């Protein structure tokens, strides 16, 4: 106590703001001609990029494993450096240096702002604290109601045709996040007139139903697939908004059971840039998510661990660069 407390106005610490702005996306991997369309990209990569674009800078994004996490991390390393990731297992604000294997993957703990419990995360979620959630699903209907529990077919819930993993956090996210993005494969059997089991609430029976139920969240705002991006109109009905390059509206209709509403002007989904694709491949060095699941079986433990560590190093060094500004 050899000096007086500092006046509160000349505090040194500054907020966690990257110098990058949303207008001018970062190019952390120093890719040549970063904003040009990538020459080679997979449909899965296009899907991940399209979903990432649903996260705005500065938002809290409730993400899960797999594609959802990939999109969140991609957003953070590109156009939304100030978004904060939320994981239901108890981490907020982390900077994962790669793809996660599970919802408690310790990669999700890296540089976290908060390490807490699941109940607290969902308490906050129920209150409407989070801006955007990203979930997956096995089936979806025209109102964005999703099924991740069971494809029952002509059987029963107790002994269904296909038992799916279950809600996980998808019900809670769709109930309470301000808006929710659903990522799916575009398949006729999945885009169904009547889901076998409603796991997560979309726009339900009618447009006011969510409000009647007292939900904090506005429900699904977008569905991103490997063929197209959909929004929802004021009635809560799904509307085709853009198709991916090379995909026609008719192609999409083919994979939807109901009479699909289509926007007046259907756009072509923006293609991934060189920078985005490079970043995705750095996030998923073992190709766990992006390009199938075989690689990890083909290599020995030692090669796996070396690959993962190399890519971690690369992503960690980007993060160190981008946060250097707030610690000087």
């Amino acid at each position, binding site marked *: 106590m050899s000096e007086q407390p500092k006046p509160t106005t000349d505090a040194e610490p500054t907020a966690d703001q990257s110098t990058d702005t949303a207008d001018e996306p970062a190019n952390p991997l120093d890719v040549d001609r970063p904003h040009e369309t990538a020459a080679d990209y997979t449909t899965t990569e296009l899907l991940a990029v399209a979903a990432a674009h649903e996260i705005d800078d500065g938002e*809290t994004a409730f993400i899960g494993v797999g594609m959802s996490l990939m999109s969140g991390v991609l957003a953070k390393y590109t156009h939304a450096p100030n978004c904060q990731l939320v994981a239901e297992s108890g981490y907020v604000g982390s900077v994962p240096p790669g793809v996660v294997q599970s919802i408690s993957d310790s990669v999700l703990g890296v540089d976290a702002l908060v390490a807490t419990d699941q109940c607290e995360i969902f308490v906050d979620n129920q209150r409407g604290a989070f801006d955007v959630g990203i979930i997956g699903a096995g089936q979806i209907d025209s109102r964005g109601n999703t099924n991740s529990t069971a494809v029952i077919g002509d059987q029963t819930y107790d002994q269904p045709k296909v038992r799916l993993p279950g809600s996980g956090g998808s019900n809670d996210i769709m109930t309470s996040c301000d808006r929710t993005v659903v990522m799916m494969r575009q398949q006729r059997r999945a885009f169904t007139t009547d889901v076998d089991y409603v796991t997560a609430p979309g726009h339900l029976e009618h447009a006011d139903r969510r409000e009647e139920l007292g939900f904090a969240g506005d429900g699904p705002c977008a569905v991103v697939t490997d063929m197209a991006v959909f929004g929802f109109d004021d009635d809560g009905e799904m509307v085709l908004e853009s198709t991916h390059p090379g995909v026609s509206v008719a192609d999409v209709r083919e994979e939807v059971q109901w009479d699909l509403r289509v926007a007046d002007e259907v756009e072509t989904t923006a293609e991934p840039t060189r920078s985005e694709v490079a970043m995705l491949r750095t996030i998923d060095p073992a190709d766990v998510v992006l390009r199938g699941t075989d690689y990890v079986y083909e290599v020995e433990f030692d090669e796996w661990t070396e690959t993962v560590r190399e890519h971690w190093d690369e992503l960690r060094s980007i993060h160190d660069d981008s946060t250097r500004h707030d610690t000087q």
Partner: protein
Amino acid sequence: MTELFTDDRPDAPAETYDKTTTLEDAIADYVTDGSSVAFGGMGGRDPEAAAREIVRQEKTGLTVLDDARTTLLDIMVGAGCVDEYVGSWVGTSLISQGHNIRNAVENGVPHHLEMRDVSNFGSSLMFLAGAMDVPFVPTRSMLGTDIPEHNDDLEVIEDPFGSGDPLALVPAARPDVAIIHVQRCDPLGNAQIRGNVVNDHLKARAAEKTIITCEELVTTDEIREAPELTRIPFYTVDAVAEVPFGSHPWHCYGRYYADLPFYREYGLRSQDREDFLEWLEEWICPHEEYIERIGEDRLATLERMEGEINTPAPEGDRTPPADAANAEETHE
């Protein structure tokens, strides 16, 4: 308590990332006449400086929607800021009663203070329900007693699952403002608490707006070094003010011990209305001035006392191993 349901649920995180402000501005901006307010701490880590600033700015008609409250409530009641208190316990210290509170409740001086009692667990649960945005949380506390008889906000129902047991339903509290004092916070509003948390993590969540006052403003990177201590995350925080010694005369765990002689003097002088008004005259002033008047030496002594009994591991001591091989030592 505040209305159970509001359409104005907490908004998306503020557009601006830097929430730092001054104590004066934070109180001026968020506490308006007639607000309902919850304060953090409980005879330790209380936001005393913030409460004195509320008195200094002459706020009126406040509802203190809270748990057990000590000096800060007694001062505000004596100064005429508070119309209603919903909570579990009032006093000023170990032995001294809340003289201003008694004077207001029993004699209407300076004006009547309406009391609505809950138990301590009742307090926790009203903030838990508020944080969850559900109308109530059930408990067995308070059953069979007069607490629900005199607090119309509490409902006693029979267990809808058919056990036959009665349950007390504690309604959600959604104060307009929560003011929480913590050891460390970053400009985004990630507030870290050492030692006990009381109900602070719930109050920040239940409130429409949350002001954090902190002993020390730290960088976001320092927060990342001990994420387990971030009991109040940035997305529930609206304003951050660095207010060193913001809990004086109470304790701040790991920072300074309570100034017992100071608040015992308050207990003495608050027994008489004239003496109390003189105390107000003497001690209600900008916090910088207050601290200066308490004096460097005295504050240093309180820091030294706390340092003798509680020396928590430094929050920021996440020394990275010189090389990865150090990780192997974990199990050696």
